[in-house]
């Protein structure tokens, strides 16, 4: 699955590993977040990253956003080796929860991210208003985020990820805790982004959603690439759920629920 970083690659992990070291009272403990991941995501595709909790999905995303540094190997995004501040202008990131500053209004929040994303001052205000309208928050643009509901915050988070029209959109568990209507809208948004030629990286637990929107997927288990599949494969002989269940092993120390 790994391929050279070329014009067709949006993201390339080359033997990327991450070991977390914690030191307490002189005792050092190590946890493997990611173990030599080799993976390529092509431009223009919707790529699903599947795995259990602690499988390495968020670590992989943090490596490519430059929030973590790889212990081994390297990661390239849109042709540039990360961490690289410049490439962040071409990426939109929507995390699992809306990590926004609740003291700001919707407009102030989006204006901040528009400025950080280098949108020229002359078009910034119009773009902010347009994006808030697009995510259905036009009526609440001047309300403080502290007054937003969970669903509204999730939309404000999506707005900051899309305000600068990024080439690569990374969504980490974007549908967790959303109602069915909101899930349907996120699904439509992902397909709309694909239609505009964007690359979407969609990390989720939800197999049924992933199989509806993704072109290819990778299943991570214990920080390793357990399996990679194309749409044709899971629509053919092997269902995605069965492939997932046979590929992953629990690493969180929790046993199965016994039904006897």
């Amino acid at each position, binding site marked *: 699955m790994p391929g050279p970083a070329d014009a067709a690659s949006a993201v390339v992990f080359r033997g990327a590993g991450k070991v977390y070291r914690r030191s307490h009272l002189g005792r050092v403990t190590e946890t493997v977040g990611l173990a030599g991941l080799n993976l390529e995501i092509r431009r223009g595709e919707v790529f699903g990253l599947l795995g259990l909790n602690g499988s390495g999905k968020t670590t992989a995303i943090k490596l490519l956003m430059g929030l973590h540094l790889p212990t081994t190997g390297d990661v390239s995004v849109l042709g540039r080796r990360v961490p690289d501040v410049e490439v962040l202008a071409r990426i939109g990131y929507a995390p699992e929860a809306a990590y*926004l500053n609740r003291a700001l209004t919707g407009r102030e929040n989006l204006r901040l*991210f528009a400025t*950080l*994303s280098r949108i020229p001052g002359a078009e910034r205000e119009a773009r902010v208003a347009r994006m808030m309208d697009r995510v259905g928050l036009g009526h609440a643009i001047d309300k403080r985020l502290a007054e937003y509901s969970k669903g509204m915050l999730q939309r404000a988070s999506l707005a900051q990820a899309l305000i600068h029209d990024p080439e690569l959109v990374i969504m980490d568990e974007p549908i967790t805790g959303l109602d069915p209507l909101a899930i349907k809208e996120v699904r439509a948004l992902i397909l709309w982004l694909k239609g505009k030629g964007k690359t979407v990286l969609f990390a989720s637990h939800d197999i049924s959603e992933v199989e509806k929107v993704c072109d290819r997927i990778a299943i991570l288990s214990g920080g390793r690439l357990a399996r990679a599949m194309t749409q044709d494969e899971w629509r053919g002989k092997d269902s995605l759920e069965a492939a997932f269940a046979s590929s992953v092993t629990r690493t969180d120390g929790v046993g199965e629920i016994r039904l006897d």
Partner: protein
Amino acid sequence: METIKAVFDYTLREHIRHKVWLSGALFGLVLLTGGLVASALAQEERVRMLLDLGLAAIETIGLVSVVFLTVHLILQEIESRAVFLILTHPIRRSHYLLGRFLGTLAAVGAGMAAMGLVHWALVRLLGGAGDGSYLLAWSCSFGKVAVMGALSLLLSLTLTSEAAAMAFAVFLWVLGHFTAEMRFLAERSGNPLTRAALTAISHAVPDFAHFNARDAWHAGDLSVGWAAAAALYVLGYCAACLALSVQVFEQKEF
């Protein structure tokens, strides 16, 4: 520059909407109590007491505010994970840190300026503070606040525990008023190790002797050169603390 300004703007807004107005209310309480005590004294004593009490209250409230706010400044954003979203945009970590620090300093400075205006008007009403000495005294307090803000930021990033950073900042603030005594002890010490340690500590901790306008006035040293040296000290100390903070922050993973 635009990214620093964007971070500065939201930091200032955040502080104004959250906490900074509390310092004004506290100052009003101190002034009210001081005024009640002062009204029992003679005219000349009343002005002197009100002047000293007010300036001391402005400085203390400013220092408490800046230590509290800067210690929480980054740690709170890490805890709430708001820093995730900021740093996944094209902004250098040094710019983020500088914008946050300057925004906080501006918020505390605005609070101190508001308190200073009320206090100055009250003192003027009673016939005191007619010359420019009030502005100089206020500026010296702000200089101390700026230095303590930069130091607290560095401590918060180095120690990671908010309580430890605040306790250590208060300890260094107290120590900063005794740098001359530390150097005196270093000169008198027969042990070269103690001498070296005391000299090093006296230079590393903030030296608040640079902001003692009253002593400088009594010694006849008060001049534009003295003020420029104090301002340079503030800039130099803050720059050193911020440079070290950036070094620590660049290594952090979120």
